[in-house]
């Protein structure tokens, strides 16, 4: 039972990071109707910017997180302006290929500057909390609390503010949003900025218990894709629930089934789900 709870706790940690990354992806999908394959690269750049600020310049962890968030948000907006905006009328396959182009570019730039080595990013919070027989390192607690507060903040932003509502309106009905005078460019840039920010903060939270390397975004982004298919593309609660499902499945499956193949679990789950229900679990009719 203790082992189960411990693994469930690990699953919660994983799930909240996956959820953050998937949230950005699903927001962008809602606006653009294109899966942004470059999102994993933004996540990776976020981790490197934090590493750069914190380890190479010796600044505070929180400064690094904020810095990474801002830098990646700007980068994400640049991608929208320079790449996805000119392609808005092109067939969807072009957006996907362009996104792959961005991904390859960002990875190559990072690899040129920092090399392909795995780097370790320290955390200022090294305490370990004990609850009965459960152990919870402070960084993991920080991940869970940080991720869920961000999700809550995003929810409030989308529901309670005007700019937030415009994002929802655009995702629900593009033409309708135009009719009531919503500026599509502004909303698109805003969405990309939020997505980039979430990816960078997610990466900074996760980096201390993981490693920083140029290909670190690959697995995370693919799992985020699995999550938004599970949760329905464009659905915000779906991204959070899907993230938790994958997080738990990995932590529990990795322990009870096979540690070697734990990265496979998410994909096998996806293949199984799509084989049975090609529209995804929670989607509403559209595929």
């Amino acid at each position, binding site marked *: 039972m203790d082992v189960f709870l411990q693994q469930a706790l690990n699953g919660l940690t994983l799930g909240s990071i996956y959820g953050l990354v998937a949230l950005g992806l699903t927001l962008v999908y809602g606006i653009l109707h294109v899966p942004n394959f470059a999102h994993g690269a933004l996540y990776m750049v976020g981790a490197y910017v934090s590493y750069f600020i914190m380890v190479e310049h010796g600044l505070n962890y929180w400064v690094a997180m904020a810095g990474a968030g801002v830098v990646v948000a700007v980068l994400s907006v640049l991608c929208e302006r320079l790449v996805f905006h000119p392609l808005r009328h092109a067939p969807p*396959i072009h957006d996907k*290929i362009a996104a*792959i182009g961005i991904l390859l570019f960002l990875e190559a730039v990072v690899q040129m500057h920092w090399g392909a080595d795995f780097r370790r990013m320290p955390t200022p919070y090294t305490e370990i909390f004990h609850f009965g027989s459960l152990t919870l390192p402070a960084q993991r607690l920080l991940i869970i609390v940080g991720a869920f507060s961000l999700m809550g903040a995003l929810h409030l932003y989308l529901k309670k503010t005007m700019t937030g509502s415009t994002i929802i309106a655009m995702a629900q009905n593009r033409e309708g949003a135009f009719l009531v005078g919503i500026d599509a460019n502004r909303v698109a840039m805003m969405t990309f900025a939020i997505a980039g920010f979430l990816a960078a903060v997610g990466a900074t939270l996760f980096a201390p218990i993981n490693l920083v390397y140029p290909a670190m975004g690959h697995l995370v982004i693919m799992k985020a894709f699995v999550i938004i298919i599970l949760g329905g593309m464009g659905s915000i609660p779906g991204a959070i629930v899907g993230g938790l499902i994958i997080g738990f499945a990995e932590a529990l499956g990795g322990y009870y089934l096979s540690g070697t193949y734990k990265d496979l679990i998410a994909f096998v789950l996806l293949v199984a789900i799509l084989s049975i229900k090609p529209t995804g679990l929670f989607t509403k009719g559209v*595929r």
Partner: protein
Amino acid sequence: MDRVLNFLASPAMKIVLLAAGILFPLVASSEYQIYVMALAFIWAIAVYGLNIITGYCGQLNLAHGGFFAIGAYAVGLLTVDYGWAFWPAFIAAGVIGAVLGFLVGIVSLRLKEHYFAIFTLCVGFIIYLLIEKWEELTHGTLGVISIAPPEGFGLVDFTETIPFYYLVLFFLVLAIWLISRISRSLVGRTFLAIRISDDLAQSLGINLMRNKVLAFVLSTTYAGLAGALLAGVVRFIGPDLAEITHTFDVITYLLVGGIGTLMGPLVGTLLITWITQAVQSFEEYRMIVFGPLLVVLVIFMPRGIVGTFLTWRGRRLASKAPAKQSASRVENKNSEEAGTHG
């Protein structure tokens, strides 16, 4: 000028290209160049495979590199661990590529557009993870060494570069010929109809699933056979062959040359291979240039070199066509040509 343009698009040009391919070893300055060219031809065969499903049929398949690796591993494991000769293993690689393609296809092709792309991305990753982790079958990260070369049946020795070059050239010509036959046939037209619109194609009575699966199986068979040839020449393969970067490379080749055109895959592969060769130190960081290149291409030149050339020639012919022949007809004919024959 027009003569040059017409010549470039004529069947005679293909004979010139073939002659150039046959004569290349005579003019190449070193054996290394011939070796590089043979490798480029192998990748070109894989790109032709991707062109069937992505170029003609319009479904972005991100597992292509995975199927290429499966072909290479089929030959590697059958010859090294099971003592098969190269040629039976080569055929087996094609069959394995086709069967796995069929199995993945019947599941994945029920999904549309993004879902298909994401699904195949995951399939590619599953292939990579299985090759890396399933040590009992694949030797894991150690890779497969001393793979059997193709037997020459006492006539030629395919461990030598030049005979192998001609062997690969033979398969490349066969691959292109087959594709040109397919693209002109009813099946090829059907693929095009699907690319233009699923719904329209279906309303014409086209069985979407059957045709998409056919295109997918053809493309994975090409990938499997190309991978098998690679195993025969490199004779050492590792799990990195299944990494997603190879799929991205193949997409870049296809896009630069011209997606959905007949000569595009060859043009793109050769061009990028030789540019990469010209700047050796560039190899590791090639994506700094190729990444933005992909973006610029899809924005400004989505049809690649060959496609843009054909469109340009079409416009030129249309503007010069006699008044009685309606310009739109020529335009139509040419865009059709660009789509199928290239």
